[in-house]
């Protein structure tokens, strides 16, 4: 059962979406996760929109957030264009394929797979170190060299496919791939991931646009809400108990993932 039935005045939903994404923007920054990965399972599970539009909005939401941040990341050296190009090329090709396949599959299959992925992401975030952790490689201002380039390209292909299929921002997977697999310092991995998402999501976005899966009344309030919330979140970052917020976010993600899974399986319609 959704929060209300489809007969509710149209403007209630964009307004509710704006409020929710504003909140998501705040907690995403504090918890150190991307807003896109929270948006699709939560909105897809608890709002009356068809999953096509939620995936489309989630993809564009992750795209716009990274577009806004990328110039600063590039100038500060926290994102590296030369490193991103081969990774983004693989990611873009597979993201495009993921988006096309996503429209060919029955919605319950996509919903079930989304539930599995989101529960897996929640587990990954739970066991991974948060941004409060003391990482000796956290600083950007020391010499580093990427390694395992071929494996990195393969990883970005797989991550791009999942991102395009479900409309997820892929920072939750890009950052470990860049940091743990390719040996980039954590801050550079975070920045480079943002630049990569801006390129990779651009390719899948065209599939969603051409299929009519980007409804402005859903996508635009979400983009604005997350962007405003992220700014507030960045200001609150130092004064908030990020470990507690992170645990709450992971719990919400697990519930939303379970809901998507059960909904896809027809157990909790």
């Amino acid at each position, binding site marked *: 059962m959704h929060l209300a039935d489809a007969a509710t005045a149209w403007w209630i939903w964009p307004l509710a979406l704006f409020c929710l994404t504003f909140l998501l923007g705040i907690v995403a920054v504090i918890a150190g996760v991307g807003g896109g990965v929270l948006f699709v399972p939560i909105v897809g599970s608890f709002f009356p929109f068809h999953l*096509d539009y939620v995936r489309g909005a989630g993809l564009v939401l992750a795209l716009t957030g990274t577009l806004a941040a990328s110039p600063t990341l590039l100038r500060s050296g926290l994102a590296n264009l030369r490193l991103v190009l081969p990774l983004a090329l693989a990611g873009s090709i597979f993201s*495009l394929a993921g988006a096309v396949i996503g429209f060919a599959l029955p919605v319950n299959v996509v919903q079930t797979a989304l539930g599995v992925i989101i529960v897996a992401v929640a587990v990954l975030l739970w066991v991974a170190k948060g941004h409060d952790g003391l990482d000796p490689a956290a600083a950007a201002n020391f010499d580093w060299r990427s390694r395992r380039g071929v494996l990195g390209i393969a990883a970005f292909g797989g991550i791009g496919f999942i991102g395009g299929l479900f409309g997820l921002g892929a920072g939750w997977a890009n950052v470990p791939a860049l940091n743990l697999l390719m040996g980039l310092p954590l801050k550079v991995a975070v920045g480079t991931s943002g630049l990569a998402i801006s390129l990779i999501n651009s390719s899948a976005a065209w599939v969603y646009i051409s299929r009519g899966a980007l409804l402005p009344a859903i996508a635009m309030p979400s983009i604005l809400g997350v962007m405003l919330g992220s700014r507030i979140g960045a200001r609150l970052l130092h004064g908030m108990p990020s470990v507690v917020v992170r645990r709450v976010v992971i719990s919400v993600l697990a519930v939303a993932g379970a809901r998507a899974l059960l909904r896809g399986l027809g157990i909790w319609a």
Partner: protein
Amino acid sequence: MTPRSRAMDPQEIYARWLERGARFTFAFALLSLALYLTGALEPLVPLDDLPRLWTLSAADLRREVHAPSGWDWLRLVRYGDYLNQLGISFFALLSLVCTARVIPAFAKSGERSQALLAALQVIVLLAATL
């Protein structure tokens, strides 16, 4: 790196173009959203119909409202909803434009493999628009 060589660096060029493009696109998107949601610009799909239509799949919705296929929607940007779609398309277009811009910059600096990768990325993004 001197200020001049820094300005010619492909990474700086990409950042500069992306910054300007993003500013324009966000301003355009905000304005078009205001025109759409306030009803100042009439939408092709009436706003009151949305709660029924957004429960349909994208394919069903397109059939229901007789939405144009391919790039034909560009002819409908006089309507509020399609003007917003144009704003969203600008977001998706930004990376393509910025990547295309750094191809000659990479070639000029002798980084042929990077120029090739950027060109391939542009081809993939162009293919995605088709």
